[in-house]
């Protein structure tokens, strides 16, 4: 089994562009979209859904107002400020812990399962895809990511395909941590901005914290040569191998608008750079 996960800390640096390109360049593989907040990989793949289901990842407290005696106990025990002065429950603040239900002497509150998203398995021209979409405002993105990974692993066993190309989420919190666990390698995608460098430091610390080998790609490298140079020296100081640099290329967006990966299009500066990065990954045993 080899699995490679694209992460970045900062959003919009090109994770999905690279994951989509790897999808096109890599032979037998399963594609996994672990950015359940803003899943975009499918937009390059024209998927046809084979299987899908609702994901009930959490619960929410529901109050029966006929039973409520307005004793205020629920509000006192709730640590998430989900119960207002009028003792109504704010479903977006409720974490579904059940403390209020336990504390209620009138048994007016119960926890009910809550659909927090939809998972799906799809066929695409570049291989099978496991992904999910979180419902707006749901709080179980980490659990939904775990669920997508389980679906992908089951698919990998069933189809006897042991290579996973995984698109990750921005940030360093819950969904990112859920996506990192158990992968063989992480490719960090950054861009030459101060924000890109700042966020690279933090995501690298997270990846190191979980002891996963990390590699770096600098996207849009020619947009700010000074900052690119700073990123190169940061990588050197931190023993972070640089797989390659991709020049800014309008063709990347044009290919996206047409629903294709950049490497499926006519050759361009960006596609050549990405092919080089892919070859170095293959030679280095990363994928």
């Amino acid at each position: 089994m080899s699995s490679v996960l694209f992460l970045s800390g900062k959003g919009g640096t090109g994770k999905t562009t690279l994951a989509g390109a790897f999808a096109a360049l890599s032979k037998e593989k399963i594609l996994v979209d672990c950015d359940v907040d803003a899943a975009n990989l499918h937009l390059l793949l024209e998927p046809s859904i084979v299987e899908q289901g609702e994901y009930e990842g959490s619960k929410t407290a529901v109050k029966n107002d006929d039973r409520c005696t307005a004793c205020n106990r629920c509000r006192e025990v709730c640590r998430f400020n989900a119960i207002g002065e009028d003792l109504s429950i704010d479903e977006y603040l409720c974490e579904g812990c059940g403390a209020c239900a336990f504390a209620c002497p009138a048994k007016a509150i119960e926890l009910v399962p809550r659909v927090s998203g939809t998972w799906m398995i799809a066929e695409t021209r570049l291989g099978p895809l496991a992904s999910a979409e979180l419902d707006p405002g749901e709080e179980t993105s980490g659990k939904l990511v775990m669920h997508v990974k389980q679906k992908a692993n089951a698919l990998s066993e069933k189809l006897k395909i042991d290579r996973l190309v995984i698109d990750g989420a921005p940030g360093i919190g819950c969904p990112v941590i859920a996506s990192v666990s158990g992968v063989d390698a992480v490719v960090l995608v950054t861009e030459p901005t101060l924000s890109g460098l700042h966020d690279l430091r933090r995501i690298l610390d997270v990846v190191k914290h979980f002891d996963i080998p990390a590699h770096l790609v600098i996207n849009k490298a020619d947009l700010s040569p000074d900052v690119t140079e700073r990123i190169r020296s940061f990588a050197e100081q931190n023993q972070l191998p640089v797989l390659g640099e991709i020049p800014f290329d309008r063709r990347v967006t044009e290919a996206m608008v047409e629903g294709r990966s950049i490497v499926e299009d006519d050759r361009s500066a960006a596609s050549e750079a990405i092919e080089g990065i892919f070859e170095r990954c293959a030679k280095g045993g990363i994928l």
Partner: protein
Amino acid sequence: MRITVASGKGGTGKTTVAVNLALACSDEHPIQFLDCDVEEPNAHLFLEPSTERRRSVEKLLPRIDPDLCDSCGACSQACEFNAIAVLGGTGLVYDELCHGCGLCRMVCPKEAIREIPHELGVIESGIARGFPFAQGVLNIGEAMATPIIHELKKEAETGRLVIVDAPPGTGCPAIAAIHGSDLALLVTEPTPFGLHDLKAAVGVSRAVGVPAAVVINRDGIGDDRVERYCEDEGIPVLLKISFDREIASLCAQGKPLVDSMPSWRNRYRELHHQMLEVVS
């Protein structure tokens, strides 16, 4: 009045818009800036605030006294987050799964559980360019960003135009930032990814009942589907920022546009006036 600058997709320019809006408005209004992207806070790179106060944001973690615990399993059964297992005659707590709700302590018949504070991150507050600035910073390896965002929002001062820089996405951190705002200013780009994630962000703002308006960044790089979507949904597009290498280069170096290109100061002020109209 609180305006939250948000987006479904990451990297669309939330921080750039929030910072420039703050600087353009700060001459005319008392403002305050809250960087709620606690996983990757970046506004400080542009605004270079002082840090005058730093406070810890904690969750409470249960600790089980093995001498008092009779391994009845009540805590483990009650925990909705599978954060406690009963093993070897006592309960074992998985700290990273715990939400710190305190239910285990409430249900323990032996009063064997006490709680200890555990730092999730910090809130740093100070002054940037003459106005109050605060940011949350999630500690490395911690999963829970929302408690820090909720705590950070308590810094909001009444009587100020509070500009909130939100995290990307549509999950709980984004909701925590947008919840209770007067307006969600959604920054997107005119690409299929931008459109897809804008729809999700509009879904979030509608779910929490916050009116939405749109800024299209890097205008010209893609197609017109974002604009058509906004028109169909009746969502006002208040500003378009053309893709321009000079703008990209200034942003890359952490330089606010309104400082080096004065015409942008007026455009951002105009954006503010339009937002006031949307809210009223």
